């Protein structure tokens, strides 16, 4: 493709001058083998990206796997907002939590996939969360309830989820805020725990993901506290 293009350009006098081609990449080296250099550079780039994905620990993997489930519960909670009579402000908050945590789940799944680790797939049916580990043997982690994931900080019990799903209007808003603050606090604790483990979060992507989760949720906790404050139980 390129050589055809290059030949065509040569025949048209100033052809190269008139277009932006991949040859425009400037390097400080001689101009003769730029195209060759460029493909070499690209090969080095992808090789380095691949090798950067070898530097991780079991703690990083456990964090990603756990946080996917943790985020998934935030989706369940947030999806209740429109149906349960939340006002504009809480619906906006819930929509943003869904948007943010959906994307982060995708990033954490990608992180695991890139490292050939089992990738939990999230299935939500109403208040029930089912997670399948795609890369392994379709291991069924079952319903999210007291016996499953509540060992993660901030996770609601199935009873609490039920309670939230039955709340309406201002009562729902307050309960949603209280539970989500607790839930977010749990995520922040999980990041702190990760960072306290030898060798963990050395991986750039893991550090970035965990840090972003930490700062986003700390910020959102504060925002929700403000929201809760103006929703005084009058």
């Amino acid at each position: 493709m390129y050589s055809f293009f290059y030949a065509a350009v040569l025949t048209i006098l100033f052809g190269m001058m008139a277009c932006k081609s991949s040859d425009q990449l400037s390097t400080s080296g001689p101009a003769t083998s730029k195209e060759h250099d460029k493909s070499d550079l690209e090969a080095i780039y992808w090789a380095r990206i691949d090798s950067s994905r070898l530097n991780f620990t079991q703690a990083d993997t456990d964090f990603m796997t756990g946080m996917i489930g943790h985020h998934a519960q935030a989706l369940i909670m947030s999806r209740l907002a429109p149906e349960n009579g939340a006002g504009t402000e809480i619906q906006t908050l819930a929509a943003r939590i869904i948007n943010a945590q959906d994307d982060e789940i995708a990033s954490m799944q990608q992180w695991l996939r890139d490292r050939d680790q089992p990738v939990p797939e999230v299935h939500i049916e109403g208040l029930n969360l089912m997670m399948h580990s795609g890369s392994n043997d379709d291991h069924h982690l079952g319903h999210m309830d007291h016996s499953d994931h509540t060992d993660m900080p901030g996770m609601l019990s199935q009873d609490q989820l039920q309670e939230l799903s039955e709340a309406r209007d201002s009562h729902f808003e307050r309960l949603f805020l209280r539970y989500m603050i607790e839930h977010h606090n749990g995520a922040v604790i999980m990041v702190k725990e990760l960072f306290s483990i030898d060798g963990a979060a050395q991986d750039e992507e893991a550090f970035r993901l965990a840090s972003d989760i930490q700062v986003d949720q700390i910020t959102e906790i504060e925002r929700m506290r403000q929201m809760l404050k103006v929703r005084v139980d009058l």
Partner: protein
Amino acid sequence: MQPNKRSSKMMASNLWLLVPALALLFSYGCTPKNVIQPSASSSASAPLVPIDEVNSPDPDPRIGLSAGLFDADEAFWNLRMLSQTPPPENFLGVTNSDLAFKDNYVIQGNYNGFIVWDISDPSSPSLVIDFVCPASQSDVSVYNDLLFVSGEGFGGRLDCGTEGVGEAVSEDRLRGVRIFDISDIKEPEYVGNVQTCRGSHTHSVLEDPNDDDNVYIYVSGSAPVRPEEELPGCASALPEDDPNTALFRIEVIKVPLAQPELAEIVNSPRIFDDLEAPPSHGLSPAELADIEKARAEGAFVGEVNGQPRVLHLRMVEMLLDDVVEARGGSGEPTAADSAALRENLPQILEDLSGTQGDTERRGPDQCHDITLYPEIGLAGGACEGYGLLLDIRDPANPQRVDAVADSNFAYWHSATFNNDGDKVLFTDEWGGGGQPKCREEDPREWGANAIFTIGDDNKMDFKSYYKLPAPQTAEENCVAHNGSLIPIPDRDIMVQSWYQGGISIFDWTDPKNPVEIAYHDRGPVNPDRMQMGGSWSVYWYNGVLVNSEIARGLDVFELEPSPYLSENEIAAANTVKFDQLNAQGQPKYDWAPSFALAKAYVDQLDRTKDLSEESITNTRQQLHEAERASGDERRDLLTALAEEVEDLAGTSGHAEKVNKLASTMRDLAS
């Protein structure tokens, strides 16, 4: 010389005339493949178009760009690319970050260290040194012969080693600010560092106007607090449990210029104290509109903790019953009761909310970035859920003077002032920069900029949002990021990074109506999945726009004249020169008198029709003559013209600008 699609445009059109068939074939084989060029022409003679009538290319050529690391499709509008230079081999595949400038050098941070480029020839930057010293994010700043580099990640080592730090507690770890002597920029010398409890995500350098011997560094660090075993004195408890907590404060480092190795933390100001009080978390315009609508429909609207709330009907009924009871009546409340409730509502709500007793102290516990604007004595702090205005006239003791919040803002990231210092723009790095937040379905108010005016009392007032207008794919991380003002006289024009959303240049002179006037964008790094890349920082420096591309390296652009930015306005911008620049230590732009400056003012008056066509033509003609003349003749022509122009001020729609034009002429005459 590098082939350059824009400067060779004229050549292309000649070809078009000479060998139409070949040119057609050629243009078909080349341009659509790699570069998506809007057809809108933009020559020096292009008519000047008011900024509220911008006609951007439609369909937007940024949509549908094909992917590639070094060969992605690109779209340009009113920008000319001078060069794109891949990272040096040691730094390939490692994140490029922020930029600082000194003389003809660009210093580009990279998670692997930093890279020094010589851009004396911006169409062919040459590598001066790639200094390996890993740490994220390697945020860089320059002050004279010193270079400061931020370290936050866990792998940064005091000895610059590449092996990382395996233990959670280690005496080898560097999290804080590294200091290099770059008096010989080819051989940077690592002279010292300052460790901080939360590392340094970013930092900003502040000069003390009253002290030539020291500079100050404000350190922002958002990572969790380090264990005390690693760095003594670091505590992460809440302030009520430990007054020395590293939370809820920033760090101020004092650097003795003669002995930078003695740099140390001299203050940890608690700029967030009492932020719980109003102004509280603000409502978005949509939410305020809901409240106004409810108010118009007769709802009871009260203020609780500084924020308007529509009261639930049930609560109104309860309060009305109280009013009835208080006047000793019974039964249904009357219109008078209703009026009484409305009148006393503020007090009633205050009494009620005062009994709720939420005394737990919070607020942001860190800033992400602080932009210092010493010329006006203020800094813009982007601090978690808040945008702060700080008084920095006493550099070691910044004081908070205002705070704003916005329910559309997830994470306040950075600030940029306009040159006059009466506006400030904050960015929202929703999702942290690693997520694709510019998709069609992502709200335009999320992950955007928020523009505020700053009143005489230093109070900020929200005006509008600005978000990259072109939707991006799910394979492109995209959100508002770093940028800087371009010194176009008398206009607020900013160039800004949007990660893989590319670069957007927009005019925010009218803070309520920011408008895009130029851009550059590439397709995704990877066609199949999100792969971190895009523009981390793009800053104007001495006539060029320098872009740190996370994956692709260093890009250099220059502005191309358009109906929205004239050749004279660009020439006037290019008269502003610095010998060093840190975008987070914002310099004031001053324009020395020049013909370019005078002509830029004339173009602006022409664009907004604030002078008659006849006056514009006449002024241009006489300026032209004066420029060709010299000595006394030039002086006399300019003096006469200045008088003529001053007389026009009264009838112009923009007397202030007309007077600036006249005074530029007088300055040129003297």
